[in-house]
């Protein structure tokens, strides 16, 4: 039954040297997501390059434009499926200058796969990937310790790497870490269990991806409904007086009869009815459904407003303290005037101050930097021209995130997360946060 299949969005991080392309190629190939004509092309190119077998990494090879211009497009999306789950994989290049790529890929991911080379263990780049996953609040992190075939499939190599990474990720506040020893090249523990690592009792990577519980209970979060579009047919007949607010419920659950507040105006009303894509008067709407709300009162509601339960409304403010990752070549400086895109609303904003710049490798904070350059992460204070209904990013990834945009050419400059999703002191774990899940064999 197709209705039982769920969707998992994941991001991979790691450099070419870690065997990431081979891993992604292996997942696609072993899940039969690679077709004969694609494989033919891979085999042909492999032969032309003098390789003995098909290089699965070629399945994720770059575009000619990238080679010619010496650039890498931030994210490539791959699709594969098992009978239980459909996967959308955001494949991000992992080199030092591409923090922004992983930030982009991780922003929508429910799970991040961080790859390390078993011969090298946890290196600077691994710590950076862990930090980005934690910063973006990716709910599940998998450490794939690759190239186990080159270290004799030894548990004594795997276990310390798993322990070190898990401890580091826990300090960053990553909610869950699972470490899996694999060989992407030989296929060990990627899709098929390894015959070489009897000491490992956990799932293969694909088994973990299939089984991991990513279905958050929508009822655990207060409802947030950014109004996208006002539907007023104004046609003769049944729907002449219809007025509905179309949007995606980005978190929570809403029912007809519920008391709501429209922000930032603060007007209150009651949900008169919920329609779902042509289906009239549904009993409930839950995130992330696209629905249409009708309100009992004739209010002035328009695109950009947020509808929320009266009892659990977000705060409304013009002063935004946030952690940002700068994405554009031109630096971000104090005093910059930009556009801020939050939910369905775009407002003018000014950079009041750059409060700190974070060294993503050491997590040391440098106070009051003169600018944030591309790929840099820092704390900023912004002032917006109009009030915004905001949540902390740690509470809600959708209503706690925003973009800064260049008003002159429309370029996306900066990705922002309200509050401080990542503590700046790695020495102290936040209370109540610890790593869980099968970390190593014997657990």
């Amino acid at each position: 039954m197709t209705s039982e299949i769920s969707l998992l969005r994941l991001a991979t991080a790691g450099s070419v040297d870690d065997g990431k392309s081979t891993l992604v190629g292996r997942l696609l190939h072993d899940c039969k997501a690679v077709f004969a004509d694609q494989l033919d092309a891979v085999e042909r190119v492999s032969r032309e390059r003098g390789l003995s077998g098909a290089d699965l990494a070629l399945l994720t090879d770059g575009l000619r434009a990238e080679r010619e211009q010496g650039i890498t497009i931030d994210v490539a999306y791959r699709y594969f499926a098992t009978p239980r789950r459909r996967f959308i994989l955001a494949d991000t290049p992992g080199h030092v200058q591409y923090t922004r790529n992983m930030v982009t890929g991780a922003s929508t991911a429910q799970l991040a796969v961080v790859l390390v080379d078993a011969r090298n263990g946890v290196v600077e780049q691994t710590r950076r990937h862990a930090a980005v996953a934690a910063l973006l609040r990716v709910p599940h992190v998998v450490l794939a310790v690759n190239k186990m075939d080159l270290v004799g499939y030894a548990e004594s190599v795997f276990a310390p790497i798993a322990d070190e990474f898990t401890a580091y990720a826990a300090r960053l506040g990553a909610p869950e870490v699972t470490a899996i020893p694999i060989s992407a090249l030989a296929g060990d523990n990627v899709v098929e269990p390894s015959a070489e690592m009897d000491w490992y009792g956990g799932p293969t990577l694909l088994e973990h991806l299939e089984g991991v519980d990513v279905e958050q209970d929508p009822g655990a979060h207060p409802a947030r409904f950014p109004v996208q579009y006002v539907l007023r047919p104004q046609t003769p007949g049944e729907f002449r007086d219809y007025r509905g607010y179309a949007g995606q419920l980005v978190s929570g659950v809403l029912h007809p009869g519920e008391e709501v507040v429209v922000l930032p105006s603060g007007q209150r009303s009651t949900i008169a009815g919920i329609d779902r894509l042509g289906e009239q008067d549904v009993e409930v709407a839950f995130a992330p459904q696209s629905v249409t709300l009708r309100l009992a009162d004739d209010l002035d509601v328009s695109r950009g407003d947020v509808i929320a339960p009266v009892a659990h409304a977000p705060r409304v403010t013009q002063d935004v303290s946030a952690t940002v990752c700068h994405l554009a070549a031109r630096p971000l400086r104090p005093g910059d005037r930009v556009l801020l895109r939050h939910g369905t609303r775009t407002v003018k904003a000014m950079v009041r101050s750059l409060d700190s710049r974070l060294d993503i490798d050491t997590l040391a904070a440098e106070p009051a930097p003169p600018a944030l350059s591309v790929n840099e992460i820092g704390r900023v204070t912004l002032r917006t021209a109009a009030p915004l209904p905001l949540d902390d990013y740690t509470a809600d990834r959708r209503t706690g995130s925003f973009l800064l945009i260049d008003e002159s050419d429309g370029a996306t400059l900066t990705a922002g997360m309200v509050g401080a999703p990542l503590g700046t002191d790695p020495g102290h774990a936040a209370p109540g946060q610890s790593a869980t899940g099968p970390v190593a064999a014997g657990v």
Partner: protein
Amino acid sequence: MSVLTGAPSRLRQSHLDALESEAVHIFRETAAEFERPVLLFSGGKDSILMLHLALKAFWPAPVPFGLLHVDTGHNFDEVIAYRDRTVARHGLRLTVAGVQDYIDDGRLTERPDGTRNPLQTVPLLDAITTNRFDAVFGGGRRDEEKARAKERVFSLRDEFGGWDPRRQRPELWQLYNGRHRVGEHVRVFPLSNWTELDVWQYIEREGIELPEIYFAHEREVFSRDGMWLTAGGWGGPKDGESVERRMVRYRTVGDMSCTGAVDSDAVTIAQVIREVATSTLTERGATRADDKLSEAAMEDRKREGYF
């Protein structure tokens, strides 16, 4: 995560529901942020699916944009009939940009191989400029081809319709940035995350009607470059190519000169889904001569402003 905190199953979306909600969100964002969107409609299954999603996104209001068909002049009769029925049924505005007109008055020259797919770019860009369309919905999916795998949902195009990888914007969360300068436009791909199988499963679930040629039928075809092409006035078969009657269906619907049929006995959607699920060839690899031109064929056409 324990079972106790898991959502009750009625508050979970299936993968088709999730893809539907995402596509609807993209349609509504575009309608709200742009002055003059238009939906590319060829009568192919992906464009039919887009229209279906748009109808649902704006219900009970009418779809707030029209359709644009770039007609190669070598379309299947069944598909044109389907297009016209659909436009009439939903009261839609249809703009047709005809490749034939361009050939007739000399602005375009017929290619030696008779293939007209590459000729669509100029009429498409002219139609966008003339009508001042600022957002153009396309049915492209990232699973189709590797140049598509790196495409954004909102893909910025310059005033020549060109796609410059350097100017593409990172897309984070579901915050789509559609700002553009005068003369530029944005291609919007609501089906970015759908696969061919998702499309068919959704078509089945929603009971969407498709042109007959997607299902197995007897047809006079001849073999060229390993594909079954329909004999017709566009220039096939040539000498030495023999016509035969076979049970075939189309996996993609495009210009007759370069869209191949596949041997099939799938006459229902369920049978088509079974066929797609077990196919060993990509849909473009099996049926599109234009993608076989070179390894970077799609990438090259995209940079020039193709769909």
